[in-house]
């Protein structure tokens, strides 16, 4: 009964989405206000039905309803309840339902937080989101219905893939999808503006918090995925340049470019058509990512059994969305004239270079990811493009980009005085060079890559500190409190840039100083890695709720003093009989110790993998700082001023909300 309710709710949501995707759009085109006003309630109703469907599936998982095929495939009566909830998105059908939930959740958010937008704009945005919803609901209902019955019911489920039985699964897909799908809002804003012919500063301002919010989720989602791969896959790597990872990285690169170009469009009114194009691109890449992950056309370390038929549907959807939005762009963009001009040396130019570098980086990732498919389609042998390709390209592309991070915040809009900037920043640069030359010597190993990494990281940090000192000094000259006039979005920018520096330090130190050893260890054997003595104390049996394990004991000593006792495990999950390596990791701020068990060799000896990873947690820490920077930026009050103004202005007369919002924005 419950699964049928869920199925029915999906169909109802489709009906709602069809209304949502058409009537408000027509209303906006013909100026019929009641039709436009329909957008919000219909979108909210659609969200409600998707929530019902989602809750039904969660309920089926919690109640062990193995007469539902999807539940029988991905759950088991011994699976703990929190993994049963996460198992909802542990397979294809459920993860598409999660995708839907996110999409209608974002639509719902637009309907709630758009009170300061004109009706025409809101109805168009919600309609465009409705059209996307129709596409994906059809996809779910026609090719991947999670509520399909299994008759007769299975006595027990096949269990969730053991790799997925982890806190990573609980958090990673929801965060990543929030990010992916979040770009649909910016996309809808861009399309709505193209339709309405309104691509002004107000449009850019509305899009900015939505873009940044989606970007925050994507950043956290990618970081969490990387961390999960690091500790769960038992290989100790944090990024594999695998096609599925690249699929999430490409929208991130374009989203980052979009955040910067939206800033220019809002402040200076230039780069308009470029910004629109980036918005379309970001969402298209999110769709491409969904296609690559769901179709299994690429061999991936993340690949699970997949169905090419479904891939074809997503590919069709991708072609329709990209094709129609690019067509609209081609028809409308020439009318969008950028106002204002800027000199060759100005903050605009530096941000343009930032954008070009980010988009080129995305293009190289795209080429590396799709090249095997391309070669295959053209009848050439299908190659795989490995990590060295990406690493070779990313260093020359990211070096100037990171250099700009330090430089651009000092440049003026419109026309910057480059020689004066060079004079002001020469000490900062000198400091960074000194750090790059000397610090590796102190650490005991000097290579060009270590020096380059430390140069870039310290350049970013020194320039941030310098910028803040300068602000405080100027405030003292003016007699105001330090940082009185500093906005949250400025703090957010500096924090996100600081996060990049932390990230670079992490990458540089791990790449430069990590130690990886595969060993054969008898009970009582000791092996020294980077000053730590690892003593293998043997393996004992151990059992968990739905698995049996061999549990190793490794005592770690430093200079004779005990540091930590680690317990790596080799598990066998009973339902599938599938073995799993569970690495033991000891994390401190400056290093990770990583031990995992290989196989038993003979007489109690095991093959053991021991890693020493300096500063590895800085990689994810840097990403978290970037996301926090995004949070600070979104919380900037200038995005909320318009709302307050409207409430004040509403009581006398319900004047056109957009006009009031614009008036409020023009002097902030």
């Amino acid at each position, binding site marked *: 009964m419950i699964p049928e309710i869920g199925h029915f709710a999906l169909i109802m949501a489709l009906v709602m989405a069809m209304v949502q995707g058409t009537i408000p759009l027509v209303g906006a085109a013909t100026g019929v206000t009641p039709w436009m006003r329909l957008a919000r309630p219909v979108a909210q109703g659609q969200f409600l039905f998707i929530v019902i469907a989602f809750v039904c599936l969660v309920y089926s998982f919690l109640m062990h309803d193995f007469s539902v095929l999807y539940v029988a495939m991905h759950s088991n009566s011994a699976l703990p309840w929190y993994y049963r909830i996460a198992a909802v998105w542990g397979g294809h059908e459920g993860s598409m339902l999660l995708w839907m939930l996110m999409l209608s959740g974002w639509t719902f958010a637009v309907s709630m937080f758009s009170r300061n937008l004109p009706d025409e704009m809101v109805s168009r945005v919600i309609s465009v989101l409705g059209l996307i919803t129709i596409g994906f609901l059809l996809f779910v209902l026609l090719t991947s219905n999670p509520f399909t019955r299994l008759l007769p019911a299975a006595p027990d489920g096949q269990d969730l*893939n053991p*790799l997925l039985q982890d806190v990573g699964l609980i958090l990673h897909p929801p965060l990543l999808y929030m990010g992916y799908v979040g770009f649909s809002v910016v996309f809808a804003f861009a399309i709505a503006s193209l339709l309405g012919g309104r691509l002004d500063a107000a449009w850019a301002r509305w899009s900015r918090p939505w873009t940044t919010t989606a970007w925050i989720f994507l950043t956290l989602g990618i970081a969490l995925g990387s961390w999960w791969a690091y500790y769960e*896959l*038992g*290989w100790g790597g944090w990024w594999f340049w695998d096609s599925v990872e690249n699929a999430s990285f490409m929208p991130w690169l374009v989203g980052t470019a979009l955040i910067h170009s939206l800033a220019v469009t809002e402040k200076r009114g230039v780069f308009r058509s470029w910004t629109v194009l980036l918005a379309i691109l970001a969402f298209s890449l999110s769709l491409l990512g969904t296609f690559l992950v769901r179709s*299994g*056309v690429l*061999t991936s*370390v*993340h*690949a*699970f*059994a997949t169905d090419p038929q479904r891939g074809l549907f997503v590919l069709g959807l991708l072609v329709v969305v990209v094709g129609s939005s690019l067509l609209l762009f081609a028809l409308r963009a020439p009318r969008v004239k950028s106002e204002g*001009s800027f000199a*060759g040396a100005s903050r605009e130019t530096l941000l343009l270079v930032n954008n*070009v570098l980010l988009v*080129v980086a995305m293009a*190289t990732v795209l*080429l*590396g990811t799709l*090249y095997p498919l391309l070669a295959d389609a053209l009848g050439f*042998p*299908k*190659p*795989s*493009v*490995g990590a*060295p*390709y990406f690493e*070779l*390209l990313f260093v*020359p*592309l990211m070096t100037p980009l990171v250099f700009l991070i330090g430089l651009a915040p000092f440049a003026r809009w419109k026309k910057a005085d480059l020689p004066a900037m060079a004079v002001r920043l020469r000490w900062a640069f000198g400091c960074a060079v000194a750090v790059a030359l000397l610090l590796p010597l102190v650490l005991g190993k000097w290579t060009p890559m270590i020096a380059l990494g430390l140069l870039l990281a310290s350049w970013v940090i020194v320039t941030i500190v310098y910028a803040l000192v300068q602000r405080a000094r100027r405030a003292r000259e003016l007699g105001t409190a330090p940082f009185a006039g500093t906005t949250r979005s400025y703090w957010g920018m500096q924090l996100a840039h600081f996060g990049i520096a932390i990230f670079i330090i992490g990458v540089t130190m791990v790449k430069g100083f990590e130690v990886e050893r*595969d*060993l*054969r260890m008898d009970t009582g054997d000791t092996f020294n890695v980077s000053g730590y003595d690892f003593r293998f104390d043997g393996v004992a049996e151990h059992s968990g709720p739905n698995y049996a394990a061999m549990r190793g004991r490794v005592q770690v000593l430093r200079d004779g003093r005990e540091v930590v006792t680690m317990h790596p495990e080799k598990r066998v999950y009973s339902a*599938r009989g*599938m*073995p*799993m*390596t569970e690495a033991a990791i000891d994390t401190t701020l400056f290093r990770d110790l990583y031990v*995992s068990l*290989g*196989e038993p*060799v*003979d007489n109690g*000896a*095991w*093959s053991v*993998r021991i890693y020493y990873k300096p500063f590895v947690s800085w990689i994810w820490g840097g990403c978290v700082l970037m996301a926090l920077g995004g949070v600070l930026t979104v919380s900037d009050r200038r995005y909320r001023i318009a709302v307050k103004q409207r409430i004040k202005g509403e009581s006398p007369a319900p004047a056109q909300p957009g006009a009031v919002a614009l008036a409020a924005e023009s002097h902030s």
Partner: protein
Amino acid sequence: MKPRQKRMAFLALGLVGLAVITALVLNALRGNMVFFYSPSEALANITLVEHKFRLGGLVEDGSLVRESDGLTVRFIVTDLTKSIPVVYTGILPDLFREGQGVVAQGTLGLDGAFHADEVLAKHDETYMPPEVAEGLERAKSARGATSDQPGI
């Protein structure tokens, strides 16, 4: 600078940048493409010797041997027509099994053995890398073709 000159300057810079990036990309791509071969294809292609490639097929039943150092393993990869012995030092991924599909990356030595420096993991025991499935299919059809010939 006049607007026209400025535009030309941007354009020229853009073109130079594009050229540099294209050169970088092509160079990186050329050096880092790794091709996939089944044992039959690898043995038929003499130019592969000492070049890095990916070898894929099934791990032959009963072929896994572990050497006394506990880390070096030997096994045979087959496409049911030809097979190649593989040597690998290190810890095998969890889902490595005899009788199942495998992809190894490394070089074919003059000793006739494939020296793998990486055995690729998969995340699902029912998952068969598409290349392996295709390789097996190609080997099978080649076998079919040769066995048909005497009849003609």
